[in-house]
């Protein structure tokens, strides 16, 4: 195996002043910089569209920032399109492009920053923006066999409820639609999998496995079967109602998403949450991560048909679900976060009970990991399966455990130190092989670290209030973020004077990582497919929104 370049492994703090000076020098005309606005550390406003790809390229490749996502907003008379980047240790950078709503053509950045590919396809489908130079726009969120092109449902004139009927009338199902097949060898055929499949319980996903017999040459996921128009539904609702949506669009990471949303609103209101609720949020977020990773480990054991291991991991998972329910009253931690802190406090005994459950879960997981390491038939199925090289992971900006198994150290808890994580001691496990086994080891490692964080949070907990008053006073937009179990999530919220949501943009780690899935499923045997899928541990519904 070739050694990994040190530039991929080392994450050094990026100095924003130096970066700003470099941008000024490199692009003397057409950029104006501003600092510290609404959760964003540096805002770069572009005067002209043509330099957009080179600015994004400079940030992503030359300055080693990681890509966050694209936020498209339709204001009264103009588009506001911002490209978010994360500068390690210094917070978020946004590149803002404004243009009149009458225009719709912008240069693509995905030729320079591949991670932006799906974001642009999404904006094309939902807002009707044209990305000049993008190789494959079209059939994405609105499936072409159901919806005709050019509907742009997320644009302002479409009022969501009134348009429900109108939209069905306007769509012309394209029954002629056929997927694009790439493999043209003699005897090649495509095997469709999904959206209703997989031993009974699976999320709605569709894959087209292009094969010439034994081996699958190429597998293309087709997602967005679960698309419910979350961002559009949120428009015009009060922040407290949008919080319910933030919790309920991807329940396996419900706490992380409601945390990111709450943090965005808190930034807008200028509210600092009380210290006790900061610590409790760390505790609950880590409880969710521990439970999620246990579930992912169960899935991996199931995919290799190792029934006893799968059952034992499932027992741990159910115990953690019950512990969550005993502590908070909900098995998936709904109804806890609120802008300003937490809705309720916990007693010392309740937290002791949780700590005991987390400790016993870690003990069980350690025993399980030891046994799995001794099971050669299990390891054979995982090793060298679904490999993603570190360069590819950086190129596609893979997040969370998947990225960290391929040598990346992208973890918002470290890189942006939000919500009091800098007070705690923890490690971010990382592997460089990038195969299924590396991903499994990262999952185990992170689960242990989460339990460690839960213990520290309980020990350092100080008495005090858990909720600060948080009334939206100013209109404006802010970004909130959190490290969800699957990776970094970003919630962009714009509130108007009345405190209702004007635009809600959710960028999820699953959306980001599904883009990289096709890299792991090139030239593999049929029977490895469920295993690669399980080691990725992605959620379709979190991607679809």
């Amino acid at each position: 195996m070739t050694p990994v370049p040190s530039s991929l492994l080392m994450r050094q703090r990026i100095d924003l002043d130096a970066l700003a000076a470099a941008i000024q020098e490199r692009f003397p005309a057409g950029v104006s910089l501003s600092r510290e606005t609404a959760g964003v550390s540096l805002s770069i406003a572009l005067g002209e569209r043509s330099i957009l790809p080179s600015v994004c390229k400079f940030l992503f490749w030359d300055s080693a920032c990681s890509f966050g996502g694209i936020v498209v907003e339709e204001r009264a008379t103009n588009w506001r399109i911002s490209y978010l980047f994360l500068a390690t240790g210094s917070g978020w950078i946004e590149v803002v492009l404004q243009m009149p709503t009458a225009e719709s053509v912008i240069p693509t950045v995905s030729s320079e920053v591949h991670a932006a590919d799906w974001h642009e396809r999404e904006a094309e489908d939902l807002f009707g923006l044209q990305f000049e130079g993008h190789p494959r726009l079209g059939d994405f969120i609105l499936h072409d066999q159901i919806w005709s092109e050019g509907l742009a449902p997320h644009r302002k004139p479409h009022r969501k409820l009134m348009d429900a009927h109108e939209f069905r009338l306007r769509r012309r199902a394209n029954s002629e639609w056929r997927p694009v097949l790439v493999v043209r060898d003699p005897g090649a055929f495509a095997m469709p999998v999904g959206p209703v499949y997989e031993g009974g319980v699976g999320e709605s996903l569709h894959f087209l496995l292009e094969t010439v017999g034994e081996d699958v040459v190429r597998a293309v996921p087709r997602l967005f079967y679960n698309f419910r128009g979350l961002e559009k539904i949120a428009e015009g609702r009060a922040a407290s109602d949008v919080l319910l949506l933030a919790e309920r669009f991807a329940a396996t990471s419900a706490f992380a998403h409601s945390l990111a949303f709450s943090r965005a609103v808190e930034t807008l209101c200028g509210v600092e949450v009380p210290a006790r609720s900061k610590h409790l949020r760390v505790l609950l977020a880590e409880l969710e991560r521990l439970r999620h990773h246990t579930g992912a480990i169960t899935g991996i054991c199931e995919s290799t048909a190792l029934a006893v291991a799968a059952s034992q991991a499932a027992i741990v998972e159910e115990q953690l679900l019950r512990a969550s329910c005993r502590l908070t009253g909900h098995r998936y931690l709904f109804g806890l976060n609120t802008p300003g802190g937490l809705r309720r406090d916990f007693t010392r005994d309740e937290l002791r009970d949780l700590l005991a459950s987390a400790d016993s879960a870690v003990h069980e997981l350690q025993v399980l990991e030891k046994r799995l390491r001794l099971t050669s038939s299990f390891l054979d199925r995982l090793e060298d399966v679904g490999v993603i090289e570190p360069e590819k992971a950086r190129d596609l900006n893979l997040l969370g455990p998947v990225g960290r198994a391929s040598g990346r150290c992208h973890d918002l808890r470290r890189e942006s130190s939000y919500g009091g994580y800098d007070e705690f001691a923890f490690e971010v496990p990382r592997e460089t092989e990038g195969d299924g086994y590396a991903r499994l080891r990262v999952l185990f490692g992170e689960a242990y670290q989460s339990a460690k964080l839960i213990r520290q949070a309980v020990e350092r907990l100080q008495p005090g209030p858990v909720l600060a008053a948080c009334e939206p006073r100013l209109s404006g937009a802010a970004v909130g973020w959190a490290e969800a179990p699957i990776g970094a999530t970003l919630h962009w919220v714009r509130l108007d004077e009345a405190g209702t949501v004007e635009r809600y943009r959710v960028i999820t780690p699953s959306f980001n990582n599904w883009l990289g899935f096709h890299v792991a499923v090139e030239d593999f045997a049929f029977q490895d497919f469920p295993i690669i899928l399980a080691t990725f541990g992605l959620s379709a519904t979190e991607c679809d929104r």
Partner: protein
Amino acid sequence: MSFWFWNGLRKGVQTTRYPRAPEPAPGVSPGRPVTTDFRSSEDASQAAAVCPTGAIVARGKSAFVDVRLCIHCQRCHFGSPHALAWQSDYEWTTVAGEGPTYRPLPNAYRGSLHVIVVDAGDCGACLHEVKQLNNPFYNMHRLGIFLTPTPRAADVLLVVGPVSENMRVPLLKTYEAMPDPKRVLAVGACAITGGVFGRTFMSAGGVSSVLPVDLEIPGDPPPPLAILHGLLVVTDRKSPIGRESLGGT
């Protein structure tokens, strides 16, 4: 690798005794708010006002709860000065629709009920709880209930999620491919009423607007035992809960 076998045995039996006896372990169910009597009608209307979905209706001095609409936000429970009574049970399955007709599957299905699950825009919670039915705690195989990947072999269609527009056709195709007799269960608040997503350009607002639904399992998400109760109701091994006890009028 014979150690797996011995380790599996050493863990002992973890399985719940439900449906023979109630499951006493705390945390198996989040419970649900129930109809509560207050001292004054103002208290009752204030208690109802905190509900974001309108599941609580104040009539006189009582606050009635329609569990079909409840999304378990717990706002009527924690932090509310007029907290509703909370009942931690899990047998929640009701008969869908207004009519009193309910037809359980014949006795022949008691030992071999095959279930297909369709994710029609679910948030992952209900689906995850269905998945838990296969873990050693619940182990629905012991009751003769099996998950099947093919609709041709399925007797029961378990639908989770509000039916997203992109899943409408796959859901209908699954339903049509199932042999008669068949039953449809809507699992979770989203599948019953559309939940927080409601009826929009991308969400049908519940399974009943697409398919005839036989039984409804409320909850957001319903815990595994609630779903198990629903599956037992299908073959008449348990009775559904009457609407009256759910606070309707």
